[in-house]
């Protein structure tokens, strides 16, 4: 057993506070006493905290301790496309710097690609103390197999204690595999990262239940601790041209580079000149617009303001506008300076998409 939870029936007065507190609906009342459904309980402890009578006891076993002290350094997987380092990498280097400083370890950038030698300086300027480079034609564009294999090999050899990765199409596909191979903990879509300095644990905060509540997640007994972070949630590391880094170039035999899948073609579909995820001004429309034809107004306004067009899930679900415009929990994260929401009710699922915003957004309730 990894833990157990017990209700002391003599203390329980049937107040139902725990029932309301349980995020998993695992507690119900029977004969005016709380009963926990173990099929649903995740031992999160939310009930323990609210119980005023201390009637609930949670025991969490520490489990078998591995020697975790062998693991050091904070790694950032730096994603490149066509040789260009993606801006998410710089954001992660910015956040990784803080974590590495708190732990007193090195911040390391990891980059896989082909002929990417010229990019090393950029990573150093963004604060990497050490850079691991795997340069091979097979790594030119992302493929699940070789990327997984190389990252696993690197981590097994150099034992990082933290690996950060962008919650991008590539990042999510890649680190999910790497985490299983390394038997590591992985927490997706973190909105905040911190270090519990005494325990040297990465504190990973992420929205749960579509953002209605937040959960703090740790990986107590496994290393590395892996986390993905969405685009533009963290601030980019500042550039310091004077910074230099130690570079470790790794070569692996051909069988490591083998891929079962084959990339046949890369197709870019640029829909508009302004990228929604990066736009300073976003004009979004929702179901309140009344019909797909009224998106013309949204487009016109966005064009006039040199902004991008966003949409709520409801508008996308109604097929008024393609999914690529969706902003929110199940869509894109946007970080505009100005966000104009038209005909959007402002549900939490939509607000999650604009967490990085710097200014309050005007919402119009027009006639």
């Amino acid at each position, binding site marked *: 057993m*990894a*833990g157990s939870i017990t209700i002391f029936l003599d203390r329980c007065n049937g107040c139902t506070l725990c029932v309301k507190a349980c995020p*998993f*609906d695992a507690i119900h009342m029977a004969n005016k006493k709380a009963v926990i*459904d*173990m*099929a649903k*309980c*995740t*031992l*999160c402890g*939310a009930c323990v905290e609210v119980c005023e009578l201390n009637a609930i006891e949670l025991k969490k076993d520490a489990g078998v301790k591995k020697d975790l002290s062998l693991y050091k350094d904070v790694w950032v997987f730096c994603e490149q496309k066509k040789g260009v380092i993606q801006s998410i990498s710089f954001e992660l280097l910015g956040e990784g710097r803080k974590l590495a400083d708190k732990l007193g370890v090195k911040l390391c950038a990891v980059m896989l690609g082909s002929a990417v030698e010229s990019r090393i300086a950029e990573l150093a300027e963004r604060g990497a103390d050490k850079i691991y480079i795997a340069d091979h034609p097979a790594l030119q*564009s992302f493929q*699940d*197999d070789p990327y*997984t294999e190389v990252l696993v090999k690197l981590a097994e050899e150099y034992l990082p204690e933290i690996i950060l990765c962008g919650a991008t*199409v590539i990042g*999510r*596909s890649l680190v*999910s*595999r790497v*985490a*299983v191979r390394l038997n*590591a*903990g*992985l927490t*997706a879509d973190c909105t905040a990262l911190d270090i519990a300095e005494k325990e040297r644990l990465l504190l990973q905060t992420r*929205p*749960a*239940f*579509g*953002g*209605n*509540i*937040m*959960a*703090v*997640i740790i*990986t*107590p*007994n*496994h290393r590395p601790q892996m986390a993905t972070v969405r685009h533009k949630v963290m601030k980019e590391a500042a550039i310091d041209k004077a910074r230099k880094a130690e570079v470790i170039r790794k070569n692996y035999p051909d069988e490591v580079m083998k891929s*079962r*899948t084959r*990339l*046949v*073609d*890369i*197709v870019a*579909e*640029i829909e508009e000149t302004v990228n929604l995820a990066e736009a300073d*001004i976003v004009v979004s429309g929702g179901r309140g617009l009344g019909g797909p034809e009224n998106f013309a107004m949204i487009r016109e306004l966005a064009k006039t303001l040199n902004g991008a067009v966003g949409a709520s899930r409801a508008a996308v679900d109604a097929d008024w506008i393609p*999914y690529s415009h969706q902003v929110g929990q*199940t869509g894109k994260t946007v970080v505009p*300076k*100005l966000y104009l929401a038209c005909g959007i009710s402002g549900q939490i699922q939509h*607000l999650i998409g604009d967490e990085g915003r710097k*200014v*309050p957004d005007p*919402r119009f309730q027009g006639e």
Partner: protein
Amino acid sequence: MPNTTDVRIDPVTNTLIREGVESVINPFDAYAIEEAVRLKERLGGKVTVLTMGPPQAETALKEALSLGCDEAVLLSDRKFAGSDTWATSYTLAAAIRKLGGFDAILCGKQASDGDTAQVGPGISTHLDIPQVTYVKKIAEISAAGALVERMTEEGYDSVETPLPCLFTVVKEINTPRLPSLKGLMKAKSAKITRWTADDLGAEPEALGLDGSPTRVINIFTPEPRKGGELLKGATADVAGELVELLKDIVM
């Protein structure tokens, strides 16, 4: 593609599923189910739908059967409780091994609430088979392999893969159908296979909370944002005021 088994996985990461949710198909999985059924209709074979969750998840599995899946397996055991995505993908992979031969595994892109998109890739790793994530179109598929389109931030990649392979699909891939009456009737009387941890022959220490590297240590309600300022007055005045305010920030 005779004698095909399409195994579809519902990555119900029970760590983040509320009551009620498990009795309906997670919206992302509906696309995976539809695609699996379409593949079967085109090429023959069999679709097995698999999920891990509490007994109530049977309702969702029955719905999947009414939509054209042939068999349904529910992995339900208190020992699975507290699984994070590592343990969930391990458990589902163990069940798929027990099911035997398959040509393709289709998963929803992510669970609607958990939103982690980790279970699909986790399964393919445990099974050591290739994967293509974020698939928006299966252009060609035969016993020899498949040609699919993987959605990217900029457009899509065309990717060739041998089978068996795991695909996670996005909503662009199809429009899920509604159930048919014959499907509903078949589903009503269908028997759903229920497997426990013992049936899977899995390593106990890899299941549930024991098998989960991550732990939720705190759950809290996010601080409400600071309220904005509501401008009131005649439309023209408000517009003017707003423009002045925005001038400093945006322009």
